[in-house]
């Protein structure tokens, strides 16, 4: 189930809200857990068993590691290794095995059986969450969770279950046991949720439609500018899609009294690639920094090793986003850019933020084109078009897309900056009734867009 669905908005959400606030405070964790499991099982019920197994294994190993971390550090380490290994194996089998096996078969190792597995939803997220929990216990940074159901809730909590943010245990430890929701906090959650819904339904989907239309243009119609318009459309789409989802998760968390960390911080206003990655999917980049980059030695090693570390981290980051060479390429692209920034450009760029901001944005846009094309020849064609290989600079079709995409692209740009949110906040304080009316209107537009998605005329009359 996704948040921007009819089932979620008008069946699941009212039910969970009703059940949660009717239930006595002590039972609320159980209510949330039960609904979380239903939420997870909704699309692919089979993988609920994988989820339950993952919870049990991590719970048990968490306890074992905690019990031994003081005196038997090697034993604790061994158990940590086993538990992390188990998590990575599950991830590897379900997420990477189909890809890896097909690659190996491709190079002549035909004896490797191919498997057709559906990717369990959210496995990348909850696996990473579990690993962070185990490592943090081993490092003695957190206390172990003794309550099984509380731990189960930490792993499977539905707001952040399927698309993050990757919540670290220390962020929610206290709230798992004791939390309070005030009406204002609930309203604040609603604000986040609405914002996310608007981003997803009104911006991301429209931008996506624009990109798809440009992507599928024949060579006869495309041009350099059109290709760039398409690339910008996708750049904004993925931001609104992902950050919208994170916003909804954070909002829902707030409605139930959890405070999840911020996942996006206006990444497209970043003035450098380094800063971009401090602002984009923050919970993931900090996970990699915490559990891969720093254990490898971070930057307090020789430059050669540092280069190695960066490349490893970014290769993994790329690969985390999907099982495909293009994701690896995309990760390495950022690895290289970051190294260039670190060793070549360094502080040579002007102190004025705009050149860096624009350059960063263009590089990120280009990066998304590696990200989105799983097929290399398509990727080359599209990126080629962006640089004028085999097409004109602009043509009549460019004008068409400029005109029809202008509003949504401008809205995209506007919503990517903090300016909007500042204005919005001031407006809300000054004219709060009007602000609420505006939100109701936006919510209605979201519902309309969701209903329209199901608008699906039967086309027998096409002839």
């Amino acid at each position: 189930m996704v948040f921007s669905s009819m089932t979620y908005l008008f069946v699941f959400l009212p039910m969970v809200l009703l059940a949660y606030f009717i239930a006595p405070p002590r039972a609320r964790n159980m209510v949330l857990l039960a609904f979380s499991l239903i939420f997870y099982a909704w699309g692919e019920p089979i993988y609920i068993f994988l989820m339950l197994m993952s919870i049990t294994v991590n719970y048990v190993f968490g306890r074992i590691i905690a019990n031994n971390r003081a005196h038997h550090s090697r034993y604790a380490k061994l158990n940590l290794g086993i538990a992390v290994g188990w998590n990575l194996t599950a991830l590897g089998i379900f997420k990477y095995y189909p890809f890896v096996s097909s690659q190996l078969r491709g190079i002549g190792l035909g004896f490797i059986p191919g498997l057709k597995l559906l990717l369990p939803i959210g496995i990348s997220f909850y696996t990473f969450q579990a690993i962070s929990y185990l490592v943090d216990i081993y490092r003695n940074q957190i206390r172990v969770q003794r309550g099984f159901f509380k731990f189960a809730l930490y792993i499977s909590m539905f707001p952040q279950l399927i698309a993050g943010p990757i919540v670290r245990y220390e962020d929610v430890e206290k709230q798992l046991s004791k939390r309070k929701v005030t009406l204002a906090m609930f309203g604040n959650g609603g604000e986040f949720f609405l914002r996310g819904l608007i981003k997803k339904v009104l911006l991301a989907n429209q931008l996506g439609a624009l990109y798809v239309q440009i992507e599928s243009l024949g060579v006869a119609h495309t041009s350099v500018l059109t290709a760039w318009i398409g690339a910008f459309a996708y750049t904004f789409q993925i931001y609104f899609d992902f950050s919208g989802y994170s916003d909804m998760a954070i909002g829902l968390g707030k409605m139930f009294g959890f405070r999840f960390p911020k996942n996006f911080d206006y990444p497209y206003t970043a003035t450098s690639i380094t800063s971009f990655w401090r602002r984009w999917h923050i919970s993931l980049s900090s996970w990699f920094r915490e559990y891969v980059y720093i254990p490898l030695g971070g930057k307090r090693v020789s430059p050669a090793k540092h280069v190695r570390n960066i490349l490893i981290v970014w290769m993994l980051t790329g690969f985390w986003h999907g099982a495909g060479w293009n994701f690896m390429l995309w990760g390495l692209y950022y690895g290289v850019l970051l190294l260039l920034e670190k060793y070549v450009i360094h502080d040579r760029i002007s102190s004025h933020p705009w050149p860096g901001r624009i350059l960063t944005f263009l590089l990120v846009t280009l990066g998304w084109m590696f990200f989105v094309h799983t097929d290399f020849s398509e990727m080359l064609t599209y990126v080629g078009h962006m640089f004028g290989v085999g097409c004109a600079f602009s043509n009549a079709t460019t004008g068409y897309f400029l005109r029809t995409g202008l509003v949504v692209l401008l809205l995209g740009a506007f919503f990517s900056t903090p300016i909007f949110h500042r204005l919005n906040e001031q407006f809300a304080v000054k004219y709060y009734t009007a602000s609420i009316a505006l939100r109701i209107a936006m919510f209605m537009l979201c519902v309309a867009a969701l209903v329209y998605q199901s608008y699906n005329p039967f086309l027998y009359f096409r002839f």
Partner: protein
Amino acid sequence: MNNHYKKLMRKALHLILGAIGFFLFVSLLYIFAVSGKKPVQAGVDVVKGIESQNLPALLQAIRQKETNEVDVTLPIVPTTEVLPVSVPEETGEITTPAETQEPITVPEDQASPTLPTLASVTQEPTTEPVSTEPPLTVRQIRINDFKEEWNAKLDANDVRNLSAEEQQQIHALFMNTIFFGDSMTQAIGDYGFIDMSQVVYKRSASLDALKEKIPEVAAVFPERVIIFVGLNNCNHYKTPEEFADAFTVMVQSLREQIPGVSLYVSSLLPPSEVLGSTRADLVRAPMYDALLNHTANLLGVTYIDSNWIVRQQNYLKDGIHMNRTFYRVWFRYLQMLMS
């Protein structure tokens, strides 16, 4: 504090009411923009008027027209000079430029798509009226001409398949005909002699039960209906007289519902010898058939005597139904009778 929340609630309520109001406003816009898709009543009346024309009369006019002489002024050919065709007098035969000894030369620039094509000129009015089908009569006289030869072939089980040409002739001949009956008729469609769209049947139905299918026959206003029923009727009707009465009723009802239709009925075929020896009720089939023949003659329904085509080897295993070979001969026979 309590007061404070009351105020908030009131405000929230107003806002929600406002939203509902807005939604109703959009609904009104929607109704204004999208609804009211009713057609113009006067137009509907015109269409209904056309639909409710008197079909039988219309069909009669169309069918009778075909027996009229063709209006020689149609179609009109624009110029005679460009015609690349010579029309020999008297014969009415048309030859193409390639076949004429002295082709009329056509200027180069005229040899364009505007040039009347060969076939359109085939329709060129000729001095001879186009031959049309003569009124359909069954020519009993000629039967003896071929019966002997065919009997010999049937005895020798030497019946060849229908050629594609024969098949097409049969199609053309029965364009406006409906075959009507029980499983004996169904076979006509199943074996593919006639398109299923021209076959109306009900399996194992007595004549009474068949009556419910008459509206289906009537729906296409066929020029003729060929009835072919089988031995179910010997079970269903205790006596040949009852059967004949039922037949009379059916004919009347067909004629009522399809004015101007010509009716034909094929023989009620006997069971195979094997089956006949075990089933006393079916032995009387020839009596039923004889009375059917008689009744048909009285009613003005053309009786098609098909008994002579029956050969023991052409029965299916059940001893009632006939195989493809029977129907092949049957159709050739019908063709002989009707063309």
